[in-house]
């Protein structure tokens, strides 16, 4: 098994490729990702469109060393592994591939079996991220998931044998879930993780996203969610239990054995560059005339058409000011337990952190125990991370 160090080197954020696959077998009621349920997928058009859009962006970012590729969705395990393979090969051709390149695919239990896993592995995928969501069948039903706990278990056990690195997602702070129920569930999850040498866990608190079916039910008071204090208690317990089991939090919702952090997602949080292809994909690129945010057309059919016609489906390419970059860097970087390197901040934005924040307010936040300054880094403490929106709002208040 390759161990990949999450480069603590503040001179490098890495460079990644995100590929968005917009289809799922069914739509989960809580989910506001760009995912759709369709009768038929024309696999070959997707194959061609990805390759075209990839070369469009590659032409603008020559000579970079690619450190990660992430197939996200939607449910990219529904993709033809041949397409996955073709995209990986093309990326290796366009850019120089890092020796330790991380290639992740998101999978939904129930859409994959051992054979399919093997095909993705052969295609070049070396990390699998699985949406398990819950270890409780009733709650899986509430979450609108089509798989059982047992199916998920079979899937992650199979995956663990095939992929060097496996991660799985759980959603907690669910309706009717109290602290002790979550602790029991998390204990079981950590045991499975240990038994199968799974090295990474994403633990998300259930969020009501605008426009989803679940948010509408919630607004109608069809169910209630744990209150702020009990959600806070569950978060705290999560930090403790995972750390004790050897999976400390490296980001608000992400835990890993040291060195097993998701390299690709680290690019986002450290403010690095990434190309985003596929419908609705976002990217951040440093071009000759400055930093830009890219966003591709969201509707899958429209994106396909546009790529076929013009070679890319960019909906918007927005120049990012140094201030906007700085804000993003603080927003993202303070999510990490490593915090934001002052030197990285200055290199990427041309500004000092001090010049962007309200210094007096920051001093107070430090005194109150929400913020720390350590070894040239600005770090949100665990309680600061849990209230990060408010902490940022205060720091950036003029």
């Amino acid at each position, binding site marked *: 098994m390759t161990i990949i160090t999450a480069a603590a080197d503040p001179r490098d954020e890495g460079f990644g490729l995100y590929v968005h696959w917009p289809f799922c077998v069914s739509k989960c009621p809580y989910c506001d990702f760009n995912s759709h349920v369709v009768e038929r997928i024309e696999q070959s058009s997707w194959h061609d469109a990805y390759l075209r859009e990839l070369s469009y962006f590659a032409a603008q970012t020559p000579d970079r060393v690619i450190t990660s590729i992430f197939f996200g969705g939607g449910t990219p395990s529904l993709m033809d592994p041949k397409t996955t393979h073709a995209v990986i090969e093309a990326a290796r051709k366009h850019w120089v591939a890092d020796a330790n390149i991380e290639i992740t695919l998101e999978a939904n239990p129930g859409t994959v079996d051992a054979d399919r896993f093997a095909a993705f592995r052969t295609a070049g995928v070396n990390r699998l991220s699985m949406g398990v969501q819950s270890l409780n069948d009733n709650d899986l039903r509430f979450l609108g998931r089509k798989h059982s706990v047992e199916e998920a278990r079979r899937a992650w056990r199979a995956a663990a044998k095939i992929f060097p690195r496996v991660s799985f997602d759980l959603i907690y702070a669910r309706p009717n879930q109290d602290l002790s129920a979550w602790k029991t569930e998390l204990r079981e999850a950590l045991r499975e993780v240990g038994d199968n040498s799974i090295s990474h866990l994403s633990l998300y608190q259930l969020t009501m996203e605008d426009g989803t079916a679940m948010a509408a039910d919630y607004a109608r008071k069809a169910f209630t969610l744990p209150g*702020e204090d009990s959600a806070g208690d569950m978060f705290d317990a999560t930090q403790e239990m995972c750390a004790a089991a050897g999976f400390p939090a490296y980001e*608000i919702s992400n835990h890993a054995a040291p060195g097993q952090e998701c390299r690709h997602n680290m690019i986002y949080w450290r403010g690095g560059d990434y190309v985003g292809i596929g419908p609705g*994909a*976002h*990217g951040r690129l440093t071009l000759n005339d400055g930093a830009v945010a890219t966003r591709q057309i969201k509707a899958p059919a429209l994106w396909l058409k546009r790529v076929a016609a013009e070679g890319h489906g960019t909906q918007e390419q927005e120049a990012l000011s140094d201030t906007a970059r700085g804000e993003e860097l603080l927003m993202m970087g303070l999510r990490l337990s490593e915090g934001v390197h002052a030197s990285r901040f200055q290199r990427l934005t041309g500004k000092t952190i001090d010049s962007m924040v309200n210094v007096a307010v920051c001093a107070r936040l430090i005194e*109150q125990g929400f913020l720390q300054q350590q070894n040239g880094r600005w770090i949100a403490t665990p309680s600061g991370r849990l209230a*990060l929106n*408010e902490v940022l*709002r205060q720091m950036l208040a003029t």
Partner: protein
Amino acid sequence: MTDLSHIRNFSIIAHIDHGKSTLADRLIQRCGAVAERDMKEQLLDSMDIERERGITIKAQTVRLTYKAKDGKTYQLNLLDTPGHVDFAYEVSRSLAACEGSLLVVDASQGVEAQTLANVYQAIEAHHEIVPVLNKIDLPAADPERVRQQIEDVIGIDASDAVPCSAKAGLGIDEVLEAIVTKLPPPTGDQGGLNKALLVDSWYDTYLGVVILVRIKDGVIKKGAKIKFMSNNATYSVDRIGYFTPKMVDTQDLKPGELGFIIANIKSVADCKVGDTITDDVKPAAEPLPGFKPSIPVVFCGLFPTDASQFELLRESLAKLRLNDSSFHYQTESSAALGFGFRCGFLGLLHMEIVQERLEREFDLDLITTAPSVVYRITTQKGEMIEMHNPADMPEPNLITKIEEPWVKATILVPDEFLGTVLKLCNDRRGEQADLTYVGSRAMAVYHIPLNEIVFDFYDRLKSISSGYASFDYELEGYRDADLVKVSIMVNAEVVDALSFMCHRSQAESRGRQICERLKELIPRHLFKIPVQAAIGGKVIARETISAMRKDVLAKCYGGDITRKRKLLDKQKEGKKRMRQFGSVDIPQSAFIAALRMPEN
């Protein structure tokens, strides 16, 4: 050309919601003043706030042309008025502009407190009154009983009262016939010296100042030079005309007619409702009697959330005041809030509406401080101070006497709710003056301190009587009172904008209620916030807002970055609607909301 005998000017008056604006719709429709496709419900309620709240706030005028059964064509000038007590000044000005009133009474509800208040005003203005029994389409309607009630309670002849349904369009022809046959035509001297009453005015972003006038004598022509008699300001008439309700230009306005004048009036301050407009060259000798000034009863501070908007607020107040002469303002400064204005209103709804109009029409963000009535304080030195703001209260040891305003309140309520209503009045320190029956309903008259009814009395009354009680009041005078100032401290700092006066016996329970309300209204912060009520240095109530624990996005990946940045901007916007006291952000809405007492 319409001679005076073919003009009828009338106000539509009623208790709130008895259907004035709906009746106006039918009259407008029947006279064909508005194309069918442009018709909508309560057409004259043209402001967004009026349509959202379903109430009339501003009186509105329309000229209608009606061909009557006698074969003649009449010019009808209709004024639709508001029903709520807080807008009574609109009614009194409308009444002065015409000779008759349609008294609309909901035939399913009967006479209510505001029916009485408005009809007495109309009688005082020497109006002919035609009672209209509205809503006869309702199963609960009992026009005969209500007709009798009008005679018994109000004491006017209701034998010719016209039954109608404004909603269903029944009896509308009969209402129109009653207008031309029962109401008198205006009088006036076309050849006489010019006299016109300035009834209303407003600021239009395209047209500038627009004034509404009622011509008494003489003719005002387009291009004429006119003079405001109160300050001798002169202007020449650019445009003149009337409303259908669309603006229609004419060459002139004649005696008896109502209409608008636009005269490039630069100084908003030149326009005073009630003023007399005359000819600059041949001015009238005496002005018209004008209006009694309105007396504000509730005061509060209005401050811009963003201090740099102070000048904008000043201009906006001047423009709004043009359209609402019943509110008053003067500058004030507060330790915590900086520069702003102390404003006087006719009631709490009035205050809410003014605040909302300022925010909407002038794009301001305002903080409203706790409302207060006017107390009279006599100091050791023998001085008498009128105190509009509890923050101005001298130290208790320098005070020899505090007096508070009392009102006479009239409440009409069905018998079954009388017990709870009387209890409410007693809880509010009321003294019963009279209790009589009007059919199955009781009419209770109480003396009550104004500060007991100003904030939430009306809401409470409505809720304990399932909406059936109605209420009206008038100021009576001042009485000695054992009052104390309750200060509110948030995170150990006094927030003067929240301090209030109350009777000593109620200080503790009100202090506790307000702390509880503030606990709900102030969002959690990163730290614990104590909220205390105190008299002098003595804390009488305390609550704690616990510290915020969780406020974070669970997931934040590539696509979420932009979204997250926008969210942060939105939160910054939200923060703009807060005001900082020490390190605590208090939402601007909390200042009034804190005073709304929960139901008990």
